[in-house]
């Protein structure tokens, strides 16, 4: 009766918050890794996933819809209780503790500042090669679209990549990952694989503690 819990071969269920935004691109990036992703629009669908991606989109819209459809509190509680989460662009804004120019509350879980549209309007959107700590295989092509500037990381936040001007492009705080750019717009699946591994680790740890 004291045998160590065995890891099952069952793949973790990764959800993509589907209130608004580039949901399909994330689902396709997961599919390219051989993983079926699930759209999450309701609390029941949220209960059914082991990890969640909050996609790119319009942060003002997603923040409102989380409140209107009464998902804000439950989502926050799930993440606080350890569910791995990854926010890309708008998703990163929603994870940030401080987003001063967003007129609705964020989930306020990652100890950082997100300054919306900090790089300018759409004509200033850009792509650049980024070295990301923890990712093998050279730089990753990072697409920034009306992107937020992530800054003021707290002590628990590990910065994984910076732009040349020093602002944060990718960071992690325990089971939470944030990227100011959109890995789902390229065919480079390394960050999706990274998040999948984060979710597998969290599942294994949860099984071990049972």
């Amino acid at each position, binding site marked *: 009766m004291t045998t160590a819990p065995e890891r099952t071969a069952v793949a973790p269920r990764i959800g993509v918050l589907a209130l608004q935004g580039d949901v399909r691109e994330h689902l396709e990036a997961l599919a390219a890794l051989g993983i079926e992703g699930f759209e999450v629009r309701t609390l029941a669908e949220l209960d059914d996933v082991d990890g969640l991606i909050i996609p790119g989109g319009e942060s003002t819209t997603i923040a409102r819809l989380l409140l209107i459809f009464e998902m804000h509190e439950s989502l926050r509680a799930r993440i606080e209780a350890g569910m791995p989460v990854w926010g890309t662009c708008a998703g990163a804004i929603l994870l940030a503790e401080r987003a001063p120019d967003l007129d609705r509350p964020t989930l306020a879980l990652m100890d950082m500042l997100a300054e919306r549209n900090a790089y300018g309007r759409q004509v200033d959107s850009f*792509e650049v090669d980024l070295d990301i700590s923890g990712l093998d295989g050279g730089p990753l092509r990072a697409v920034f679209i009306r992107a937020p500037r992530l800054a003021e990381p707290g002590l628990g936040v590990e910065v994984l990549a910076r732009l040349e001007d020093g602002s944060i492009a990718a960071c992690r705080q325990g089971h939470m990952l944030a990227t100011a750019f959109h890995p789902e717009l390229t065919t480079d699946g390394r960050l999706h694989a990274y998040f999948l591994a984060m979710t597998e680790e969290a599942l294994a740890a949860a099984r071990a503690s049972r």
Partner: protein
Amino acid sequence: MVTTNGNMADGSGERGETATWRVKAGLAQMLKGGVIMDVVTVEHARIAEEAGAVAVMALERVPSDIRAAGGVARMSHVALVEEICNAVTIPVMAKARIGHFVEAQILEAIGVDYIDESEVLTPADEAHHINKHPFRVPFVCGCRDLGEALRRIAEGAAMIRTKGEAGTGDIVEAVRHMRAVHDGIRRIGAMRDDELATYAKELGAPLELVREVKEQGRLPVVNFSAGGVATPADAALMMQLGADGVFVGSGIFKSEEPAKMAAAIVRAVTHYADPTVLAEVSRGIGEPMRGRSAASLPAEEQLAVRGN
């Protein structure tokens, strides 16, 4: 007002490469599952943002008023577009006349986030659309079928919307155009590769793009619905027919309670396949715009036939 910064014309900026196809088409990808609302004042723009719009379209007049006013419909006043850009944090789009590349240059210089080369304005060129490739700002264009969509993409459109019949509040043309696009995509999917060249010729579209549609099973860019959406049910109908999102023109600010109608349409687009939510959001939102049946329009008042 922030406008184009010190970026070079070749698309390299201080932080990386700007105005790439991925960046232009990418913004439209971020708008998916959202509602883009026509606004004619700063006050409207704030109501739209508050209701959860993913972007606003800055205009002098909504399409139903353009119809009523008659005359020549042109690009909006620069000052109005700038005021609206400064009033909201969501992306701002603005319309240029079909073929009027100088209106487009001006809108780019102001710093709008997307240009709609639109049949709602009086066309400036009866033969040519704007060559959209050299612009740093992305474009959205209207279409009535797959061939028209692919011609616009070949000219550089990074986003497509089906035209519908703007300013009518009648969904019938929007449905016709969305069905036509998807019918074309399904036909391509069922074709052998050696049949694609002939079909491309029939469509009047580049073979390369027809091949891409076959590979992906959809348009190479995001496709919203426009022209006739007046209720949450209309918006959800277009989503169920395969739209990636919805433009609402006159349907919001010509309704009895614009703020409620706007918020209800936003919710309907998120839960477009859930009739329980659709029923709930359809309650207590006042009268939709009165509208005018598209079939009752004399030929000279039909907007969708402009540009091909």
